[in-house]
């Protein structure tokens, strides 16, 4: 147990008691032989009383006081470089780095797409979207082609369509036969896309210029304004899609019947080995559905059968894992190493007592064949209240037990505390973790933030 930490002028105990005590000001140095400000006590006695007071405060904090909550590594902001500023105020959203790390793209209300080469201060703006347009999705392919979904209000009604931008060309190229597209996903080879309309899921062969419907909408409730399928993932030639408003995933290959995969989240494809990893969406001991354990689907089997890679059965008293825990509205951290041998994920281990009052949220690694138990490679403290995940990283916001904004690197398995003034939103932010470079569309501007580890 260490002493309480001072933070923002409040004495925070690491436990449960919300101390509202403020540390007393250190007594002003008194001249030798003179009395302190109170005029009654010799300095040494004042300091002694002060020490006793602090000790009493620490004692009042009680057994809730503990060591600082992970992670302890910190980042600091070295430089903030403005790439673009809004001429009219507002509008910049969804900054995304290209997979090759050369470009940062974002979109602006009005249908513009901004594009900046990281090694060039000039910004390219694609402005050829029709007037009154807006962008509803922005996704890079592995080949650094940018796919966007454009929504345009016309006299005939709302028109939606997929467009592609090939940097550095500053023109959006509309993709035919993609009418009604709300969202878009790239096939790994960049030669096909999938998109969802309000009523169905489609596959578009960009080379063959053929669009086929894969799956009609599912019956039942869905969020107002949502497409039929909200999350789209290519697994080789197949498309996995989550029916809007549910956790039900479907796997469809053009020309074959769709396969219901079940209630899952965070699909992680391994097309080279015909596998698909996912976090199961399970009801736990108190019947709350949450991410639990990891399964692998062998896509060569018909139908694909899941096998358990990371245990999630809570009924047998054995240890199990909760990846990402509970917020289903964000992509999961499940990531596969390039050689396909190792899975990484964030979560907590359950089924044994923790040394702390909370369960330690960790970045874990596990062999992708499930041959060994997961091992923690970085501890990040108690779980985040909000948790946003990108391709290579996550940002977590934690308000209790120890307030922190945390950046986690899912590639190199590191985690740091971000500086308090780091006020960007993950949804509009992307990170090149190997360079600790953050691209952030903050509405009024788009900036590059260079971070470095603090000593």
């Amino acid at each position: 147990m260490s002493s309480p930490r001072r933070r923002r002028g409040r004495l925070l105990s690491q436990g449960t008691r919300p101390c509202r005590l403020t540390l007393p000001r250190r007594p002003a140095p008194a001249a030798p032989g003179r009395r302190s400000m109170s005029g009654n006590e010799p300095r040494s006695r004042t300091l002694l009383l002060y020490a006793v007071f602090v000790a009493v405060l620490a004692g009042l904090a009680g057994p809730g006081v503990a060591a600082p909550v992970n992670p302890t590594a910190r980042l600091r902001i070295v430089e903030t470089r403005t790439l673009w500023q809004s001429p009219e105020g507002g509008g910049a959203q969804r900054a995304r780095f290209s997979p090759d790390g050369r470009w940062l793209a974002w979109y602006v209300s009005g249908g513009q797409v901004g594009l900046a080469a990281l090694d060039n201060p000039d910004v390219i703006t694609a402005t050829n979207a029709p007037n009154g347009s807006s962008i509803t999705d922005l996704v890079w392919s592995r080949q650094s082609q940018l796919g966007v979904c454009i929504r345009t209000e016309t006299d005939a009604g709302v028109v939606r369509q997929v467009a592609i931008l090939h940097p550095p060309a500053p023109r959006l190229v509309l993709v035919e036969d993609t009418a009604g597209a709300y969202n878009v996903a790239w096939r790994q080879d960049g030669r096909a896309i999938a998109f969802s309309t309000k009523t169905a899921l489609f596959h578009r062969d960009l080379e063959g210029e053929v669009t086929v419907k894969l799956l009609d909408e599912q019956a039942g409730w869905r969020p107002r304004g949502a497409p039929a399928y909200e999350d789209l993932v290519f697994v080789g030639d197949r498309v996995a899609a989550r029916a809007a408003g549910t956790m039900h995933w479907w796997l469809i290959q053009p020309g074959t019947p769709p396969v219901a995969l079940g209630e899952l989240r965070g699909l992680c494809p391994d097309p080279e080995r015909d596998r698909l990893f996912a976090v199961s969406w399970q009801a736990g001991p108190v019947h709350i559905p949450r991410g639990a354990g990891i399964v692998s689907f062998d896509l060569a089997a018909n139908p694909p059968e899941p096998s358990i890679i990371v245990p999630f059965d809570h009924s047998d008293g054995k240890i199990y894992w909760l990846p990402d825990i509970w917020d289903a509205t964000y992509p999961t951290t499940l990531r596969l190493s390039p050689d396909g041998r190792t899975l990484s994920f964030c979560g907590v281990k359950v089924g044994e007592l923790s040394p702390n009052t909370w369960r330690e949220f960790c970045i874990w690694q596990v062999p992708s064949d499930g041959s060994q138990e997961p091992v923690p490679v970085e501890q990040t403290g108690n779980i985040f209240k909000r948790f946003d995940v990108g391709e290579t990283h996550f940002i977590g916001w934690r308000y209790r037990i120890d307030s922190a904004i945390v950046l986690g690197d899912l590639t190199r398995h590191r985690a740091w505390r971000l500086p308090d003034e780091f006020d960007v939103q993950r949804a509009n932010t992307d990170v090149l973790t190997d360079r600790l470079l953050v691209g952030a569309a903050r509405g009024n501007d788009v900036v590059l933030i260079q971070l470095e580890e603090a000593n």
Partner: protein
Amino acid sequence: MRNQPTARRAHTGGTPLLRTVVLRALLPLLLLAAAAPALAAGRTVGGIHIRTDRSIDFFSRETILAGIIEPGMTNEEKAIACYELVRTHIYHFPRPDESDPKRVLNVYGYALCGTIQRTLVWLAQGVFGPDGAQGAGMRSRPIENPETFRIAAGGWLNDSMYRLDGARPPARMGHTWCQLYYDGRYHYLDAHAGFFVYTADGKHIASIAEISGDPTLVTDPVRTSDPFMPCDQGRPEFFYRATGGNRGPGVQETQHSMALRVRPGETLIFHFDKLPGRHFKRSRSWRNQWAPDYYEEGPHLRSQGPEVKSYRHYGNGEIIFEPDLTRQGFRESLVQSENLADDGLPGLRPKAPGQPAYALFAFETPYVMVAGSVDATFAAAGAGQAAPRVTFIPPDRRARPQTIEAGADGVASGTLNMDDARYPFSGQVRIDLPAGSSLTRLRIHFVTQLNFHTLPRPLPGQNTVFFNSTEGDPAHAKLQIEWVWTEAGGREGHDTRPAAGNEFEYQLTLGEVDTTPADNPKYMRWLKLSIPDDR
């Protein structure tokens, strides 16, 4: 004060307003003035406290704690003992419209979350001191759709709407909770929901901050209360989705006394059940918020099946005041009179034959009055005189007096509406005697509401019953204590004995009973206290 009856007034407004207000204002003084000489010389017995050695004594916080806190208990065990007592004696139902913890426990036995947590705070403050329990409030995000609710794993609003049939939340639904502070930490025990969980190290009951900081303490608990959210079957999401909060209501206090008083001609009956007729308090604050069928059966525990429902519901008591008007015992219940004859002859009559008279009787009970009736017989007044009448005067100034006039046959008989009377714990009954009339028979009957789970209860086997009183002479008054119960096979058990003094104890043995489980008290039928009016 002058009480000359005036010309006839509205049927329910028989007493002039000014006089009524003055009477009500002076009621406590009048009661004291009237009771003091009566207790000194009469047969009224007050300050009665009955308990047994095998049931928790709900007379005061101290007696409750003496029944649940044992030497050597850890602070956590003490906290759980308080939580369990509140959880098992107050169920979720709207609504007493009172937050006095002693009344909530003894009179109602049901409440909504805010009142339940206040009661737990009150009890726990008796263990941990005034700083040891604090309340707070929390709200949830409004969720528009059940599917969203399921996916987002949060939302008290929807949860409530689905659980409480016919519910129409008055506003954004929320929940009120409290934490107990001991061993240097806060601990969240929810006696309303039946909820507490342990921290991940398994060492102590988690605080709301720890739950909010690690929702897995709820989704995948290390250890929970048992039962764990028995009403919800596990939808505790709103605990870790908590927002809001405050320092709570502070020190909880009560001035309510559970001491009983019996006067000559008076009988108190405490049933371990409800009486026919659905006599229960209708929540005024929530009466428009719930579908009528929700309230149809009266307060009961709705969510744990018919077996539990059969013994977790409101109960009733009775106050029967039927003095022998040929004797003088009724005078001990009088708090005021004018021109009332005291010549020892039968009946209540005007002293000056040509003038009217009145008599004012006072009633007071630890339990809320939910129904009542009056049955009086008058000797006919002379022609041209106003009809004799009986008026019930509730203490609440917003409640109008209720008057029942004697008919041509001299009988004044009718029921009292305690909803209109705003469910009082006391009241006065005024007998107006026109010139030439007399009252020859009087029966006043109040039905009270009580939580029969908090009554002193003998258990199967041998029990010791303890009796204490602080006013009067129970033996001289011939106070009788009667227990009636049903043993296995339907055999009736019965014990009646006279009070032996102001403080005495006796043994009471019950045979085996058929009722299950152990906390089902329905084998008991009633406890009755009475003093005959025979002098």
